[in-house]
């Protein structure tokens, strides 16, 4: 059985950046396993721009952003296998995969980086009401049909959910001549980036119905009509608030879920908030030698941060491979008031180091402070004009600022 120092599962934005960083740090015996027939993952269908502002200080389309990494992977002769599906990872880090060339193979890894991305929440997962007809599709699938396959998905489109892909697809459908009748969002605020609300909805006069959801899909063979209704703060329909739209397509942009079936099979617990594994500052999971990053760890809103995170996971894996890990006391991060989750969930205290803590708020805040507490003493306060669940916050914390290490609590204090 062939043994690799590092196996990276997934050749999307996270996997590519992780592979490059590991290679840079001197890991030569590595491989990327990718299930699709191409590298780059979901970026390849994101033909709009807005990628790369952080990493490259310029606006790139998804395929352009991916290509920069793919070119580097090729220049550095990092091996990868395409159309390769991993069946199983064993407790001994044996990886069973299959593809057309090799049949079914088993390789052994000293370390594994999981970069398997996320999947979209479906009509079934949100228990969409009404008929089960053709014409209900997730935004990512609609995007694939339009941008990779080159086919129109509908003439009169309604969009449920204001996630970023939904907003991007609203504009995309308009540009291809479809009518986009509206976007309904069950929450009282949008779940997409503000720039997407402006550029994809406002610029095209597409109405956004906040606190609304689809109450019923009507149709015999294909979607013929949808009925939306307003919901109260307990998510119950408000009688009399129904609006009907004649349409042939309902695009769903109702959330992304980290895709971790391989880790679930290994019985590694998934965090109920992130739906990814719990990690430490090296992005190592509770399973020694298995690292996780990108959208399979937690859903990101910008690919640039996926690439950055993957780099940190690769550094962690390299450290693990070099056996540089010392037994250190481990502390927890706690998501306090107003915080949905904090990542990493665990960290060890090292003097002269910095840790990037990432978190999302559980609802929008205006004029507030992020308070980081340690043993009830305040480590840091950061004032913010606003905080939105759609935007991941990153706070780089100098460990030297902490005198007496203990668990760190993150919370939001509203300023009045």
């Amino acid at each position, binding site marked *: 059985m062939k043994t690799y120092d590092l196996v990276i599962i997934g050749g999307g934005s996270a996997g590519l950046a992780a592979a490059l960083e590991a290679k840079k740090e001197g890991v030569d015996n590595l491989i990327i396993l990718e*299930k699709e027939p191409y590298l780059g993952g979901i970026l390849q269908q994101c033909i709009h721009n807005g990628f790369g502002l952080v990493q490259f200080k310029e606006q790139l389309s998804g395929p352009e952003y991916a290509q920069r990494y793919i070119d580097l992977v090729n220049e550095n002769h990092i091996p990868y296998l395409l*159309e390769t*599906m991993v*069946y199983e990872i064993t407790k001994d880090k044996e990886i*069973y995969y*299959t*593809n*057309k*060339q*090799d*049949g*079914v*193979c*088993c390789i052994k890894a000293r370390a594994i980086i999981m970069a398997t991305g996320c*999947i*979209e929440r*479906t*009509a*079934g*997962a949100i*228990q*969409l*009401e*009404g*008929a*089960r*007809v*053709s*014409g209900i599709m*997730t935004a*990512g*699938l609609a995007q*694939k*049909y*339009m941008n*990779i*396959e*080159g*086919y*129109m*998905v*509908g*003439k009169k489109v309604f969009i449920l959910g204001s996630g970023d892909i939904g907003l991007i697809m609203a504009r995309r459908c308009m540009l*291809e001549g479809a009518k986009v009748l509206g976007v309904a969002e069950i929450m009282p605020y949008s779940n997409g980036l503000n720039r997407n609300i402006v550029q994809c909805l406002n610029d095209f006069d597409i109405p956004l119905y906040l606190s609304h959801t689809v109450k*019923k*899909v009507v149709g*015999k*063979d*294909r979607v013929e009509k949808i009925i939306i209704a307003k919901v109260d703060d307990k998510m119950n329909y408000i009688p009399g608030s129904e609006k009907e739209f004649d349409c042939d397509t309902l695009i769903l942009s109702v959330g992304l879920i980290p*895709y971790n*079936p391989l880790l*679930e099979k290994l019985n590694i617990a998934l965090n109920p908030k992130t739906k990814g594994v719990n990690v430490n500052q090296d992005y190592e999971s509770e399973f020694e030698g298995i690292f996780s990053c990108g959208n399979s760890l937690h859903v990101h809103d910008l690919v640039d941060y996926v690439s950055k995170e993957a780099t940190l996971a690769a550094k962690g894996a390299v450290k693990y491979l070099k056996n540089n890990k010392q037994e250190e006391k481990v502390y927890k991060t706690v998501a306090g008031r107003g915080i949905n989750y904090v990542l990493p969930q665990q960290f060890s205290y090292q003097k002269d180091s910095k840790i990037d803590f990432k978190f999302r708020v559980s609802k929008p805040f205006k004029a507030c402070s992020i308070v980081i507490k340690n043993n009830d003493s305040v480590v840091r306060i950061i004032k913010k004009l606003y905080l939105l669940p759609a935007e991941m916050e990153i706070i780089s914390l100098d460990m030297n600022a902490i005198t007496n290490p203990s668990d760190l609590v993150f919370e939001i204090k509203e300023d009045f």
Partner: protein
Amino acid sequence: MTYDVIIIGAGVVGASIARELAKYKIKVAVLEKDNDVGNETSNANSAIIHSGYDPECGSLKAKLNVLGNAMFDTLCKELDVKFKRIGSITLALDDNDVKTLKELQIRATKNGVETSILSREELLKIEPHISNNVKAGLLANTAGIIDPFNFCVHLMENAVDNGVELYLNTKVVKIVKENDTFIINDKFKAKMVINCAGLFSDEINEMINPKSFEIIPRKGEYLVLDHFDDDFVKHTLFLVPSIKGKGVLISPTSSNNYLIGPSAEVCLKDDKDTDKMTIEQIKKTAMLMVDNIPFNQVIHTFAGIRPTPANHDFIIEEIKTKNFINVAGIESPGFVSSPAIAKMVVEDFIINRYHYELKKDFNPYVRPYLHINELPFEKRKEIVDRNKDYGEIICKCEKVSKGEIIDCLNRSVPPHSIKALKKRLRVGFGKCQGGMCQSYALHILANYYHKDINEIPYDSLDSYILLDELKGAKD
């Protein structure tokens, strides 16, 4: 086009009769309105092979359920269909229910079904997740779970392999009888017609007979949970029956998912809508049986419609028109009864009357299906080394290979739609519900049928998925 027998409807009843008739030297056609077999009631039910303790003693339901149940081991072996006798437990929540369990046990004995009553302590040993409400249960070991989609498909596949002709997308709109010959849609001729049109069997009957029965459509909504723990629930769990049917059940499925439902609401024949209120009610009822059901694992909700007859027993009869046989009102336990119904219809109405001979070359077996994900790795390797298509995984969630899809397409009842493929191989059945694989599946179907991918429907011929190509897409 002249046949000895025409069967209207390719649900589990029509398919069972077709396969039974395929054993004889007789020319048979099946006319199906949908774009696939088993696409209506047979496609959306509890997927349960009931033991037969429940139907009223002396009813056709009781007789055919028990007879049918015993036939499934052989049938599923011949037809290569997933079937497991996992047993069912009917749960009692209060003293009144416990009394009912005892009555049910007496009924079970009369129906010829072996059961035992288990105390709460005994139940906890075999089903540790039952709720605090549960007082006792009636265990019937002969109950089972089945893959209902492939049972219908493989029955018809075997029937077609043995000479039966299947016409999909052929809705019966007109039946006349001239002399001794039935003429259907001015095109299909037959000596005998078997009406297995399920929900629409009353309308079909009335094309040639005076109204003699009515089908009341009754909707059942269900939730499907993803694979999360193979041992969460090990038996099919029911609540003590109410007047509205058998009530809500929780059951593992033959694909290691969990099924929860159904509701029971009178509806229109084409109303397969799901609604939040009903789904929430089902969840509440299910929680009476089992604690901590992970409803965050729901991957799908759906509704099926049962063809309920007014008198609540199966209608298997020839009324005014000779050689026009109604097989109607086959509601629960219709699926389990279908093989026994088929035997009864074929023997009583056809063979006893016309004495057709048995074929000597009838082959009861379908060509075995290969499921790459169910084999040990060594075996998978051997297979992929022989045929590379088995190394190309199309459905990532359920791990279905291109090889399996191509094999399916090369069979006598192949899938013509995304839904038909999903029913056969579980492509798009998993967590992502086809988000990752549907485009690949479209390409494989389109390639096989020499079509463009926008010509492959989701289900019916009118249920298109894609419109025209975008301008410049192929440049």
